[in-house]
């Protein structure tokens, strides 16, 4: 390989990808805030932001301008340098992860003056990608706990501690869920995991129903989202670890939260939903689905998960802190250990064993669902009449 070619592969192309992806993610996070507000409004039968631009689509631009030009308030007694360092420490790992997310397969394109170039819809395909994702995202915890501590405010301090405790607690079931996915794919490389779902002729959601459930629940907790947004529980802790943050510094925390949501959704897609593969990648009758390019499939699947995030927010009330810790340590960890042993047993029988496990799991899940709905339907609905006091008031009116 001559020097210009290695400059191209090792510097130019990845650097261009870094610039494009980081800007895209920052924009996507902004758009996501708008979509979230509109979706929440829809779920709660109100209008949501609809003034700035057509249907309020430019709302996030207005928000960005406002946040950028807002006064930068740092409490006088705060640790100034660490107070500044914390958002950077949160953002760097949050965006660095995007280097290994596999948005699509390799492709060749022709650039005038450079000739044919073969590159891929990801910046790096490492043989330890998945381990790297877990490692890098954990570093963000330092930013949160340092930000809470450096603010020198008791709400921020408690919020930061809570957040750290929550994040490390849910790291454990998440790790076990990821291990069961590796068992199925026999690789740590995200690209190979997606390709394995083509060669195994199934998405890993089939045998990985429980693993996916564990991964996504832990993922919601890892991103501090409702129903696990304890660190920011405003009724107890004002705004949690970012109580003393405002303007652009606060925006960085916020932006990273949405970037992390995209990361969790993207990893869930790659591990369990076939990444950029179309549904049923081995069925030839569905080959017409290949009209949709692989990248769009990936984006589509990730968008579905992001919608589920927002749907959660519109649906669930917040957990209490002791319930949250009990759920993580006493429920999710035993389930994830059992699930790991089950998957390991099934993997002894190769792909066929995994397929049988998948059919059993899905059968059990659908059966349980049917039985529960049948029982609910059989039982007369619990007293739907309002309490006496309310009925009396209604009668008056």
């Amino acid at each position, binding site marked *: 390989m001559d020097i210009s070619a290695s400059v191209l592969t090792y510097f130019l192309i990845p650097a261009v990808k870094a610039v494009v992806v980081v800007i895209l993610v920052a924009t996507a996070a902004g758009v996501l805030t708008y979509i979230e507000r509109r979706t929440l409004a829809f779920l709660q039968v109100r209008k949501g932001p609809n003034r700035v631009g057509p249907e309020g689509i430019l709302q996030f631009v207005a928000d960005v301008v406002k946040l950028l030009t807002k006064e930068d308030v740092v409490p006088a007694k705060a640790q100034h340098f660490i107070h500044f360092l914390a958002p950077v420490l949160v*953002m760097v790992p949050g965006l660095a992860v995007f280097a290994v997310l596999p948005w699509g397969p390799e492709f060749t394109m022709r650039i005038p003056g450079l000739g044919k170039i073969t590159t891929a819809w990801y*910046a790096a395909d490492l043989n330890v990608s998945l381990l790297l994702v877990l490692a890098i995202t954990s570093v963000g915890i330092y930013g949160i706990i340092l930000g809470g501590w450096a603010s020198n405010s008791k709400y921020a301090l408690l919020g930061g501690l809570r957040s750290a405790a929550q994040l490390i607690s849910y790291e454990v079931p998440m790790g076990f869920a990821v291990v*069961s996915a590796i068992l199925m794919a026999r690789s740590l490389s995200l690209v190979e995991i997606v390709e394995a779902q083509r060669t195994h002729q199934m998405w890993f959601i089939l045998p990985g129903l429980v693993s996916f459930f564990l991964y996504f629940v832990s993922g919601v907790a890892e991103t501090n989202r409702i129903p696990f947004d304890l660190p920011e529980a405003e009724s107890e802790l004002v705004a949690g670890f970012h109580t003393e943050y405002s303007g*652009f510094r606060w925006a960085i925390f916020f932006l990273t939260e949405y970037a992390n949501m995209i990361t969790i959704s993207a990893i869930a897609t790659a591990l369990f939903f076939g990444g950029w593969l179309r549904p049923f990648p081995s069925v030839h009758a569905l080959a017409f689905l290949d009209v949709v390019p692989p990248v769009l499939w990936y984006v589509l699947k990730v968008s579905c998960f992001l919608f589920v995030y927002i749907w959660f927010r519109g649906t669930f009330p917040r957990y209490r802190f002791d319930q949250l810790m009990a759920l993580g340590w006493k429920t999710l960890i035993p389930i994830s*250990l059992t699930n790991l*042993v089950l998957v390991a047993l099934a993997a002894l029988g190769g792909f066929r064993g995994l397929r049988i496990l998948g059919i059993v799991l899905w059968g059990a899940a659908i059966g349980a669902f049917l039985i529960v709905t049948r029982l609910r339907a059989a039982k007369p609905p619990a007293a739907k009449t309002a309490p006496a006091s309310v009925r009396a008031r209604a009668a008056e009116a």
Partner: protein
Amino acid sequence: MNPSMASYLPILYFAIMAAIIPVAGLAAMSLLRPSKPTPTKLAPYECGVASPTEAFDHRFSVRYYLIAVLFVVFDVETIFLFPWAVMYHRLKLFGLVEMLVFLAILVVGYVYAWRRGALSWA
């Protein structure tokens, strides 16, 4: 440069880009944004009477420490499982038995911690 190390370079570029946004954003916008600090504005947020002590001095529950220690135990466990999971299709039954023994030891510790109340937050 060793090509296998060079494949990690994109992560460095991404990290640099990610660091540029907050640093450059804060620096550039200092020209545009107002700055009118007052003592009240710079006081830490407080509900009611301001706290006479620094938040740095506040004590917090020892349970945070317990959770951290338990996390280290379990996380190291997961790290051992990663290479095992990649090689499992070659280790076959031997790998399964070995890992079951390993998990059994962990579960003993887990049950002990549970019975001692280390997992309950109240």
